[in-house]
């Protein structure tokens, strides 16, 4: 049976934990605002890029189409890029992404495909290397970078493009968490290669194909645009991931703070009962002692 002093220490320690979770929640909330803004700021570029590619893809057909757009005809070599956060304490955020990726890897492996992995973010690497250590091509750790820019993701996009052009990867799929709202982050898969072109994003020409002029040629533009699209897609996904991470951390820490509050309440009740019981016992002892005289 815990003594009163033990109970006091325990309550104190839960209170200290609650202060930490409360602070973490507030920090996450502040960072969420910024992360959300930068995710939103990146959206116009990604959207325009998709529209430009869709415009081009519509006009291009047959053998002249670059492989990055239409694929190289094979799906044997799968490259899976898993983007998670570098830190934890964010509820199921990282685990959800990893679970989605793991399911995909297992289903592809079962289908006889060769799967290799690139991880972005420390948590994803830690969780995946237990099971797929030999399949990890490269792990990127972005914990040192404060601001995500196109330059930060360029090396990752370069590696993906190289894997593809050198024939080690036929299909590239990115796993990340789509930021739907502050309370909903959906682990999602996005196909990077062959490019997932949304033809409806192309400018509506009312059925008439406009005569486009290209400088340099159509093919050359696509050749340079597609690798860039990789970086842009990656950046947009990582920014969404970032916003999702803070949103997830915020609600996880909010829950933790609330749980700590409930624990403190329950413990205080127990503590006070015990204290009263002890006082009552002491009083009985004193009265009994006085009567004996």
């Amino acid at each position, binding site marked *: 049976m815990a003594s009163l002093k033990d109970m006091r220490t325990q309550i104190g320690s839960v209170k200290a934990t609650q202060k930490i979770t409360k602070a973490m929640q507030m920090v996450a909330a502040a960072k969420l605002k910024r992360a959300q803004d*930068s995710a939103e*700021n*990146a959206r*116009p*570029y*990604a959207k*325009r*890029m998709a*529209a*430009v590619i869709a*415009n*081009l893809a519509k006009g291009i057909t047959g053998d002249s189409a670059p492989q990055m757009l239409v694929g190289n005809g094979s799906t044997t070599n799968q490259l899976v890029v898993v983007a998670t956060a570098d830190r934890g304490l964010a509820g199921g955020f990282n685990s959800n992404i990893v679970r989605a990726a793991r399911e995909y890897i297992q289903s592809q492996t079962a289908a006889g495909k060769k799967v290799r992995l690139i991880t972005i973010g420390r948590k994803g690497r830690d969780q995946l290397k237990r099971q797929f250590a030999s399949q990890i091509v490269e792990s990127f750790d972005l914990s040192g970078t404060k601001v995500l*820019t*196109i330059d930060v993701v360029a090396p990752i996009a370069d590696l993906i493009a190289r894997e593809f052009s050198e024939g080690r990867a036929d299909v590239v799929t990115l796993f990340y968490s789509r930021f739907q709202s502050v309370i909903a982050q959906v682990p999602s898969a996005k196909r990077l290669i062959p490019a997932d072109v949304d033809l409806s994003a192309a*400018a509506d*020409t009312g059925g008439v194909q*406009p*005569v*486009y*002029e*290209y*400088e*340099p040629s159509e093919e*050359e*533009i696509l050749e*340079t*645009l597609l690798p*860039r699209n990789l*970086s*842009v897609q990656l*950046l*947009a996904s990582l920014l969404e991931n970032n916003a999702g991470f803070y949103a997830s951390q915020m609600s996880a820490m909010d829950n933790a703070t609330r749980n700590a509050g409930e624990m403190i309440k329950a413990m205080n009740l127990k503590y006070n009962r015990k204290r009263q019981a002890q006082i009552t016992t002491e009083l009985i002892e004193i009265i009994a002692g006085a009567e004996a005289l």
Partner: protein
Amino acid sequence: MADTDKLHVSLVTPERELFAGEVDQVVAPGVEGEFGVLAHHAPFMTTLAEGDVVILDGTTKRVFQVRGGFADVNEDGMTILAEHANEYGETVQ
């Protein structure tokens, strides 16, 4: 388009949208030479060289330094997708 004699232009970088609005003229550095775009320009697309994008509207002139990217002109207006872009500063002539 609301104003038929104006060109809708947006200059975006991966980080943010630097400029969006209706203007008179845009001069941009294509890989095969500098080109100017007015309203109702024929559909046109080019990769950009390193240089200055000049946006002219009335008496205002805004100059952006861009590096890497694309310009796309279609009936909806002009879109400049720059990988890096900075504004020199607004000058009124």
